[in-house]
C-alpha cells in the first residue's frame, strides 16, 4: 500500500491508500464524532454525523469521513460553521426519535443541539444498524435484521434464530446507542420464547 499525504485541520497526516478519512484522522489523534461506525464493521455511512469538509482539486464539499477514501493533497476540515450546523441538525433530527440517548445527549451539549427542535416521534431506534451489521458481519447469525423499508424500516429479531442464539451472546446490546435493542429483545422473548429464560413469577422470591 502506498502512502498518501493529506491535511486534516491544518495538520499533515500520512495515511495509506484505501483508508478512510476517519481512519486517517483517528490515526492522527483528531476526533470526529460517529454514531453508526464500529471498528470491526464495514463502513456504513448512515448517520452522517461524521461529515467533514474536504477540499480537492479546487472543489470543497461535504463528505462522510467514515466512507470517504483518503486521496493525495486532500484538505480536510473536521470543524467549520457548515459542518457544525449540519451535525447540530442531524442531532436534533435524531433527538426527536431518541430524546434520552446518552450518546446523543452528550453530542447535543457539544454542538448546542436543541432536543425539542422538532416534533417528538420517539421510536428510540436511530437506525445506526450496529446490531444488525454486527450480527451479520461478525457473528454471521442474522438473528436481528431490518424489516420494512424507508421511514417504516425498523429492527427486528428473527424469532427462529434469536430463540436459539441470542441468550448466549447479547454482544450487540452494548453497541446500541439507545435502549431500544434490549427492549425489542425482551419483548420478543416474552412473546415468542418465554421458556428460554425462566423468570420468577410475581410475588415469589428467587431461590
Amino acid at each position, binding site marked *: 500500500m502506498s502512502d498518501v499525504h493529506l491535511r486534516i485541520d491544518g495538520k499533515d497526516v500520512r495515511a495509506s491508500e484505501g483508508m478512510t478519512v476517519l481512519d486517517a484522522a483517528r490515526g492522527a489523534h483528531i476526533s470526529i464524532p460517529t454514531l453508526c461506525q464500529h471498528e470491526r464493521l464495514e463502513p456504513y455511512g448512515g*448517520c*452522517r454525523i461524521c461529515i467533514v469538509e474536504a477540499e480537492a482539486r479546487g472543489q470543497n464539499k*461535504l463528505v462522510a469521513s467514515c*466512507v470517504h477514501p483518503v486521496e493525495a493533497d486532500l484538505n480536510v476540515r473536521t470543524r467549520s460553521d457548515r459542518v457544525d450546523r449540519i451535525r447540530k441538525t442531524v442531532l436534533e*433530527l435524531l433527538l426527536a426519535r431518541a430524546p434520552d440517548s446518552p450518546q446523543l445527549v452528550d453530542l447535543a451539549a457539544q454542538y448546542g443541539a436543541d432536543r425539542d427542535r422538532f416534533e417528538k416521534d420517539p421510536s428510540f431506534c436511530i437506525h445506526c444498524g450496529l446490531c444488525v451489521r454486527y450480527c451479520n458481519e461478525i457473528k454471521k447469525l442474522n438473528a436481528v435484521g431490518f424489516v420494512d423499508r*424507508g421511514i417504516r424500516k425498523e429492527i427486528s429479531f428473527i424469532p427462529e434464530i434469536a430463540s436459539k442464539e441470542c441468550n448466549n451472546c447479547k454482544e450487540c446490546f452494548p453497541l446500541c446507542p439507545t435502549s431500544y435493542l434490549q427492549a425489542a429483545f425482551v419483548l420478543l422473548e416474552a412473546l415468542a420464547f418465554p421458556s428460554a429464560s425462566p423468570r420468577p413469577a410475581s410475588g415469589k422470591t428467587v431461590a
Partner: protein
Amino acid sequence: MTVPRLSSPEELAKLSQELSSRRDPNSPCVSICAGTGCLACGATDVVSAFKDEFEKQGLKDKVGLRSTGCHGFCERGPIVVIDPEETCYLQVAPGDVPEIASAALNENKIIDRLLYVHQVTGEKTTRESDIPFYKNQRRLVFGPNRKIDPQSIEDYIAIGGYRALVKALFEMTPEQIIAEVKEAKLRGRGGAGFLTGVKWEIARNAPGDPKYVVVNCDEGDPGAYMDRSLMEGNPHSVIEGLLIGAYAIGSQHGFVYVRQEYPLAVKNLGIALRQAEERGLLGKNILGSGFDFHVKVHRGAGAFVCGEETALILSLEGRPGEPRPRPPYPAVKGLWDKPTNINNVETWANVPLIINKGAAEFASIGTDGSKGTKIFSLVGKIANTGLVEVPMGIPLRDVVYKIGGGIPGGKKFKAMQTGGPSGGCIPEKLLDLEVGFDELTKAGSMMGSGGMIVMDEDTCMVDVARYFIEFLTEESCGKCVPCREGLRQMHRILDRITKGKGREGDIETLELLSETAQEASLCALGKTAPNPFLSTLRYFRDEYEAHIKEKRCPALSCKELIAFYIDPDRCKACLICLRKCPTNAIDGAKNKIHVIDQAKCTNCGTCLEVCPTRFAAVQKLSGVPVPPPIPEDRRMILRKSKEDERRPSAD
C-alpha cells in the same frame, strides 16, 4: 418457425434490403398505436376491429396493418395513422373502423370528424406531421416508434436497424466508438447528465473482469413514461445501443433492469431479445465478428430509489435496494465489485443514432452543454398531454404553447415542474429558458429523466412542494438521517403550513433541513429532494408567507384555508347546489336564498362546480372571514312573474 441466423454483415444487409423492398412506401398501411396509453383507451378493440374489417372487405393483402408502440399524442388516443398520406385519426373507436377501412382505403376519402381540430382556431389537420403537437418536435429517437411493430425484429431491420452495430463491430475500434460518443457530447438521459463517453472510457479502462453493462429502465417519476414507451415501442434500438456500448467497454454481459409494473415493456423486451438471439444479433460470435454478448432481464419491484445506480446494483445482486457511498463509482467497482456501466434507456437508444449519423451531426443539435434531443412527458394542466421529443435548447415556452397547445379552460400558466419529484418549479417569467441540463439546474430545477408537469393559476405552490416532499419521504430508503428524518420533518412542516398551522420560523427551519439534506445525504435522492421546496420558495415566496402569516392560500386551493360562500345578491335559489351538496350543508328552499352552514361544509367544492355560470353565486374565500349569513327574514326572493303580480307575497 426457425429463422435463418445471420452470420455476417453482408447477410444482415441483404435481409434489410429484402425487407425494406417489401415495404412499399406507396402502398397503404394502417398503423395503430398500441402503447400503454392507447391500450387503456381501447386500442386492442380497434386493432381487432380492423382485422375483422379487412377480412370482410377483402383488404388483407392490399392494405398493411401494424400495431406500433406509442406515438406520443396520448391525450387523443387511440391513434390511427394511414400511410402513405399520413392521414391521422384521433380517438378512434371500434365503431369508426368500417368507415375508415372502406372510405379511407378504397376511395381515399377523409373522415372529417376524426381529424385533429385546433382547440382555438377550430382548424382541422389531416396529416400527422402537420398537427402542431408533432410539427414542432424533432423525433429522432422516438420517431421510429410509429413505423415499426415492436414485436417484429424484421420491422426494425427493414428501417435500417442494427446497421450501427455493424458499423461499430466491423469498421470501428472500441476506442473510436468511445471517441465518437465523447465527441457527440451525449449526456446521460437518466437525470444526472454525466457525459456518456467519459463514463464508458472509465469503465473500459478500469481493471477487472468481467465487466457489466446495464440498462436502467426503473423509471419511477410520477407522470413520466418516456422510458416505458421507448422500451415498449422500440426495444431493439435500446438493445442495439447496449451492444455497441458493451463492445466499446469490453463487456460480454448485460442486464436490463426494468420495472415489473411495465408489463408490456417487459413482454416486448423479452420478445426482442429472443428474436435478436435467433437472428444471431445476440449471443456468441455476433454476425461473425467474434464478439459475444448475453443479456439478462431483471424485473424491479417498484422502489423509486432503485433508479439510483448504486441501489440498482444492490438490487441486481439480490440485496435490499439501498444506495451505497460513491466513490468507488460503479464504472470502477459496481455489480459484484466489477466495473459496471449503467445508462438510462433513452441514453442507450441515442447511441445507434450517433454511430449512424456521426458525432458531428448529433452535436449540431442543441446548446453548448446539451446535445441532441430529449424526450419529455408533458402532463398536467396542458391541452396536449403526451410524449414530446424536442431538440435541446428549445425554449420552454415553445414546449408549453406550440407543442402543448397551452393551458386548457382559459386558465393562466403558473409554473412548470421539471425533472421529476426532486426537480423544481419554473415560473412564467423564466419560460424563455432554453431546455438543457445546465440551464435547468441554474434555474433551481433539473433535467432529471424528463418529466414536465404544467401547473395553472389554481395550483398552490406550497401544496405542490408538500406533495413532492411527501412522495420522496415515502420513497426514501431510510438509510441516512438527513433524508429519512429530515424529509419526514420537512413534510410535517409543509403539511402544517397548508393546513393553516404554519408558524413564524417555519421557512427558516425548512431551509436548514434543505441544506442538511442537500449537503449531507448519502445519495442523489436525498441531495436533490429539497428542490421542490427550494424552487417554489425562490419563485413563490409570497405564497408561503400568505399561508403562514395570513392563513390564506392565494391559489384558493388548500382545503383547510378556504371557505365556500354563496353571495346572497347573486343566488337565484335554484336548488341545484342544495341538492348536490353531499353533506346537506346548504339551507334554503325554492325562492329562498341558499346559505352554507360552515360547520357542516367540508369544502368539497361541489356547489361551486354546479352553480350555473350565469349566476356565479358561489365564491371561494381565503384569508378573509366568511360574511355572516343573511337574516332569515330577508332570504325570500320576490319573483316578478305574472302569477306573483296577481298574488301579493306574504310580506
